[in-house]
């Protein structure tokens, strides 16, 4: 693990998962890969936080998990963004931006 890669901050992981799933339904491993790729390997998603997060989001009704056949004997659990998940993504995103802007403002002083 390079020194420039970070564990995802706890609160932002939900946001990143939602963002990933906004593109297309994915299974857990693919989500972690996608986050890693999109952040150019800057962010590492620990499995220890990924699966609890998925459960949490599913219980909130933001994502919906379902088994899908990947071949004759293999199946994977795919997660889909729900309607309220999409809305949550929008609010979480703007909240994040506001937060970042605020922090930036402080750091510039």
């Amino acid at each position, binding site marked *: 693990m390079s020194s420039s890669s970070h564990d995802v901050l706890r609160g932002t992981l939900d946001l990143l998962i939602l963002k990933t799933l906004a593109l297309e339904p994915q299974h857990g*491993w693919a989500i972690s890969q996608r986050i890693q790729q999109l952040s150019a390997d800057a962010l590492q998603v*620990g499995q220890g936080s990924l699966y609890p997060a998925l459960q949490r989001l599913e219980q909130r*009704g933001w994502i919906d998990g379902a088994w899908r056949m990947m071949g004759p004997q293999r199946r994977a659990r795919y997660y889909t963004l*729900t309607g309220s998940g999409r809305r949550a993504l929008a609010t979480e995103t703007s909240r994040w931006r506001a937060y970042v802007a605020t922090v930036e403002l402080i750091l510039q002083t």
Partner: protein
Amino acid sequence: MRDRLRGWGKRLRRMVRRRTAEEELREELAFHLEMESAHRAGEGLDPAAARRTARVAFGGTERFKEEVREVQRFRWVEDLRRDLRQAARSFRRTPGFTAAVVATLALGIGANTAIFSAVHGILLKPLPYHQPDRLVRLWETNQAAGIDRGPVAPGTFVDLRSRSRTLESVALYFTSPDWLVTVGETTREVPRAIVSPTLFDLLGIPPILGRGFLGETDSGSLPEETGQVIIGYGFWQREFGGRADVIGQTIHSEGNTPLEIVGVMPAGFDFPHGAQAWTPEAHGPTVGRVQRQFRYYGAVGRLRPDATLPEAQAEATAIARQLEADHPASNAGWGLRLESLHTSLVGDLRPMLWVMLAVVGGVLLIACGNVVNLMLARSAARQREVAVRAALGAERRHLFRHWLVEGALLATLGGVAGMALAAGLIRLLVRLAPDGLPRLDEVTLSLPVGLFTLGITTLTAVVAGLTPAWHARRPHRAGALRVGSADGGNPGQTTRAWLVGGEVALTLMLLATTALLLRSFIRLSEVPLGFQAGGVVTADVRFPSGRLQSENRRPWFELAQRYQRLVEELGSTPGLTTAAGISTLPLTDDGLETTVWRRDAPGAEGRRPPPSAHDQWLAEVHVVTPEYFRTMGIPVHSGRAFEPADRFPAEPFNDPTVPRPMGAAIINEAMARRHWPGQDPLGVQIVTFNGAIFAAAHEIVGVVGDVRSRAVAEPPRPAVYLPFAQLPRSDLSLVVRTAGSPSAVIPALAARLRDIDRDLVVSAIRPLDAVVGQAVSRPRFTLALAGAFAGLALLLAAVGIQGVIGYLVVRRTREIGVRTALGASRGDILRLVLGEGLRPVLLGILVGTAGALFLARGLAGLLFGIGPVDPVSLGLAIAVFTGTATIATLVPVMRALRVAPTEALRVE
């Protein structure tokens, strides 16, 4: 929202199928590992190394499996369990508090459950018949005679049946409570109803065994020659051991008529009330004038599915008008009233039951008030604990939930205890209930009653938990943690004060209700009954006709002689002063009245009443033996009482060809006032329909004082007394006056009756006072219930007041001490303590007074001789309450006055 629901659904599913969820998670993780290994292998590692490094990167699976599980689980189930454990532990630590709360709640919930079970069983539950809401009771009414619910004449019934289009069927019934039946060797009294053959179809209840009665033929007679009888379940079980071969067996009724048992009714079938045997009676399409005139049947009908009660009433009124026009002699002035069968059965209990429910509802509120009070006091005591927990990071909602759980747990315990208490209370209620209360067997702990209890328990839980929870909302962290904070925080003291105010108001309302009922009952007890019940024993006796020696089918003369001998021998028995008999004891008359007319009324002839309804009077007719008025202490105002000479020889009884002689009659003052106001009725000859069987007419020989014959509260109606020797009957109520105690002579009297005449059947021997007591048993029962509940309320309120003022004193001990040290007088201290403590009490008294006046309007139907707005009752209630409240405050106030300055400084 839907997504969220789905999320909840998943959570629930997971909880139910924990194993499946586990497996799914394992599978999902395995898949992840596989993908990761494949990915690493793709980057050039050999498969084994790839899997190993993947697993290393993955980390310990158990660690985060647990984390996932944590999310999955219903957190609150765990929390709830913890809160419950905590609550249970803290209750065990404070058994006194717990017992007080649970007992208080159990009393409130138990009383409510018991009373609600009565309300449900009697008022709310539908009658146990097919489509009971379509059943109506029919009455004949006569405004001029003051009859608003009178029995029905067969003639009216027949015409109504053929003309009505809103009623699909109608049935008559007539109850004779003491029918003698011989089964095999034993003879028993069985309550029997003579009914229209259609009655069972009308009610929609078929026999469980055998069949119902066959319908009437077109000519209005019964299709079968042999007598038929349908018997009740209890009779079947008792006499035939519940055997199925009872159908077709024969029983013998009085007079040796054989009756074939054709059916057995199901258990619980109780129509008309009390009947255990039913015999059919037909009323043909053509009826004579007599059948139009003599109204003594009960009548029920069933509405057609498309008809409403108002429609049926309008139609019945129209039919009654037609009958008035068609048959003025018998029907002028008579109307028809329809009432739902349910109302007619239980309508008069409605006000009493609702008032009782309101009263116990008040008791429950007061109980809740005290429980909240206790919980608040406890929360004040635990303020520091709560503050510590809050400071240590317990979330507010956790503390909030904690109080709610405590409240719910206490309420559940109270509810369970209350339910157990209710089971006992219901048994007690049913046992103590006055006789003749309808549907008493349906007063049980049923499912709806259980739901009601659950409802009030939940409500109690919310109230008991929410108030302290509300106060725990903002724990006074710093304040409570401060050392020496005995008078620091004050959570809920204001709430507690207002709670007590509310309790005071409610208690006062209940006390005022009881005071009103008490005053009304006293008024009722003071009503002059018109006779002296003290020292009189009464016995219901009869000669079964099978035991008479007379070969003749008209044993009347023999009856007259044997009863005459009986009362004479009784009267000369040592220890007994006088003895007599009457057809119906005072206060037990069912209100049947007989048509009476002047013999010289225009158009009257023999037994034919005058054609003008104006000349037909209605009066109670009582048949009495000569000593009756003296035995009962009924004053003779003018003329004379009956004498042994008021009798007929055997011929008029047994030989219809002998012209009927003139008999004697005595009327009561009400009759004299109504028909001969300011005149002397003595010497006038009157004909009473029944009395004209053996006599041409009866000459009025005396006027006696009025007697309450139906009910204590009902003013006397015109009454005619005829000599028993001129109108004998087989059953009689004996009245015997004794110099000693009535209860003491009962065994001797029973033995003496057997000695005098072995053929006599004696059914009930009791002091006449018991009959009087029975007549006022319903208001007495209401009063006793209200009194018991008001007493309970008063006790609870007193405890509440004492608690609040006591707490006030403890809280201010130091202040009182300091003030005393600085020279405050006892008066100053009193003002200090009571000024704050009694303000809500005084306000409660004001509000309660207003509430009592408002509530009293609902009581109007239960009151006798007293208006709902009664300052005396209200004053009495306030006095009782103030007295109790004073005593309740005395203990804490005395403590406050005894506070020594030094003691005050040591309070910490």
